[in-house]
């Protein structure tokens, strides 16, 4: 049985059209390449970029003198000793150029007295974060890049295209096989260079701040193509994700900008500002880093001092209506539509899966260990170590995207023909056409079950017993899922999409859980209740590879400029 597949060719295939993917497309097209910009959802709408509320960290020195090396020092400090220093340096050093280019493309960074405004965020040594008002940074970045993509020559855009597997020939990645959701048909794509820009894995968790299409696709694609991952145990929880009352039409990480501009008080059920108990005295200022704040809130809830829905209170009751309006304008009306009046009531917040520090191993060119395969944005592992500094995510999307586009174009110039191996694509084409026999399996419910397992047992606070229980649940779900997708193979079959998603999510969840089980200490976003404290012998990264016997972990020394020589 062999299904027919539609075949297309491109110089550069980019998987994912968030900030990193779009910047990579613009840069590769600028170098003269043809580009296929593919996304499983609409172009430039899903993913994490569009969800960003405010801060983009960059040493512009617009209001306060600054230098990329200060930003770099803060990034390494936040990363608790595990940053890949080459990648962290690249992020900080090239950030200003990308931010200025975005300004030239018309993004409209917030300004005061003619200068671009830079806000202070926890972990930075000075005000460093540019933004677009009000809570509009992500949509503005996406819109600006969509415009620049449209003005570029040679970029084809393809939404509803779900990449199922990368294709290899002669040990190199030569393209991909995709499932076109709105027709149900398989598609093969020959590419001289492929860039994975699929973002992170926050969808593995019940409460998360990213889009429903961020289930770790790129990590699974890379693993199956032989490219290793790093630091998979480090999932960043955003400490003050919205919890209650029910609030619609807003992103759950919206309270961060409120804290940047207005301070706010983080309180337990006894009305006490509790972060001092965990080593950071706030007194109305927003200075607690994400790993510490997450730990503090979870511990307060455990101690019986949580809010009614199981989080903490965040109060702006000390702010006047006019101060709130000046800072957030129309957002105050949107809150009123949800029956929220910040001058009269606190809201409830709790940690929410937000970002993944781990990811695909790449060098400064964004090249992975497999020729032909590049990576960009959150999909890259290592730049942020064990804990990401506020504001570094959009910066890395732009910087790493630009660099990946450039590197892909350099490879394309060296390749006169497409080495696509049609035979290597065949198993995935057949998988897309196959029909499994699990029609009684509720795939959407299984995704919720996996999310519950990860949230309860592989969340911010971990123990050996809980991690082992999670691994057993992942084993059981992997067996239940089976080897062939269920569904009817007609257009927009969500059972089939869930199946392909679970195939990726279960593999990536296993990588996270195994890495967390193996790390014998607590560091940054990885907190082991049974192994408290950071140990100097664990100042190392863990590398995950997919081998014939399954996932294998090995330790690796932290990459420093000296070690990279």
């Amino acid at each position, binding site marked *: 049985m062999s299904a027919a597949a539609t075949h297309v060719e491109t110089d550069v295939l980019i998987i994912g059209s968030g900030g990193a993917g779009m910047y990579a497309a613009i840069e590769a097209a600028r170098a003269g390449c043809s580009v296929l910009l593919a996304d499983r959802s609409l*172009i430039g709408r899903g993913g994490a970029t569009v969800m960003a509320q405010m801060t983009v960290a960059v040493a512009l020195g617009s209001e306060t003198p600054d230098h990329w090396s200060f930003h770099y020092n803060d990034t390494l400090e936040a990363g608790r000793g595990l940053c890949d220093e080459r990648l962290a340096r690249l992020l900080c050093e090239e950030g200003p150029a990308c931010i200025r280019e975005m300004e030239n493309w018309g993004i409209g960074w917030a300004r005061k007295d003619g200068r671009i405004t830079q806000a202070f965020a926890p972990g930075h040594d000075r005000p460093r974060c540019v933004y677009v008002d009000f809570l509009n940074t992500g949509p503005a970045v996406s819109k600006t890049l969509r415009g620049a993509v449209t003005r570029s020559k040679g970029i084809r855009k393809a939404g*509803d295209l779900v990449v199922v597997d990368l294709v290899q020939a002669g040990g190199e990645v030569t393209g991909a096989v995709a499932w076109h959701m709105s027709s149900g048909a398989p598609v093969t794509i020959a590419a001289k260079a492929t860039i994975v820009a699929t973002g992170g894995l926050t969808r593995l968790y019940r409460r998360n701040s990213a889009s429903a299409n961020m289930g770790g696709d790129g990590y699974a694609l890379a693993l199956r193509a032989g490219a290793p991952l790093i630091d998979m145990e480090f999932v960043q929880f955003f400490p003050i994700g919205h919890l209650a009352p*029910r*609030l619609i039409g807003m992103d759950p990480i919206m309270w961060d900008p409120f804290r940047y501009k207005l301070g706010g008080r983080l309180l337990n059920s006894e009305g006490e500002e509790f972060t001092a108990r965990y080593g950071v005295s706030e007194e109305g200022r927003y200075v607690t880093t994400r790993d510490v704040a997450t730990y503090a809130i979870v511990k307060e809830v455990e101690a019986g001092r949580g809010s009614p829905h199981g989080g903490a209170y965040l109060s702006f009751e000390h702010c006047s209506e006019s101060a709130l309006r000046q800072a957030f304008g129309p957002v105050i009306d949107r809150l009123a539509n949800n029956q929220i009046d910040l001058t009269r009531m606190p809201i409830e917040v709790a940690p929410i899966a937000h970002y993944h520090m781990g990811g695909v191993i790449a060098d400064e060119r964004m090249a992975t260990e497999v020729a032909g395969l590049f990576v960009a944005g959150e999909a890259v592992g290592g730049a942020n170590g064990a804990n990401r500094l506020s504001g570094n995510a959009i910066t890395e999307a732009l910087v790493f995207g630009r660099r990946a586009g450039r590197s892909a174009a350099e490879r394309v110039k060296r390749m006169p023909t497409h080495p696509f191996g049609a035979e290597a694509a065949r198993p995935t084409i057949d998988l897309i056409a196959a029909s499994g026999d699990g029609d009684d399996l509720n795939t959407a419910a299984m995704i919720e079950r996996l999310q519950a397992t990860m949230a309860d047992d592989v969340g911010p606070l971990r123990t050996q017993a809980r991690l082992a229980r999670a691994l057993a649940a992942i084993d059981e779900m992997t067996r239940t899922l089976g080897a062939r997708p269920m569904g009817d193979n007609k257009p927009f079959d969500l059972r089939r999409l869930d199946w392909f998603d679970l195939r990726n999510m279960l593999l990536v969840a296993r990588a996270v859980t195994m890495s967390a089980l193996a790390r014998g200490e607590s560091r940054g976003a990885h907190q082991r209740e049974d192994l408290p404290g950071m140990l100097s012998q664990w100042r190392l990264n863990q590398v995950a590879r997919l081998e014939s016997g399954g996932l294998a972990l090995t330790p690796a020394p932290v990459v420093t400029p000296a070690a990279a020589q």
Partner: protein
Amino acid sequence: MTSIANLKIWRGESADAGRWEHYEVPFEPGQSVLDGLRWIRTTRDPSLAIRFSCINANACKECMIELDGTTVYACTARLAAREMTLTPLSNKRLVRDLVTEIAPPAERFVK
């Protein structure tokens, strides 16, 4: 304080051969229509087709459908304790159930 919304949903793969399906969806005040559709998928029928990415932020703009004949975002329309009729956008090509072809022509995959 749980209430029940009666969702009457148009389902089908071609515009001239559809059917109505009815679901009783429990909800807490403040919940969205998209919350209800996701509840149907996990507890009743995972094959119900709906397009969405961002779930709650109204950032992706993908979840446009018609509610009682008016275009809404499913993520910002709220569930109510009454019959609510959900149909795909009438001015877009139907893909399946509540999913229509909403991408601009230049952003669709074509060979």
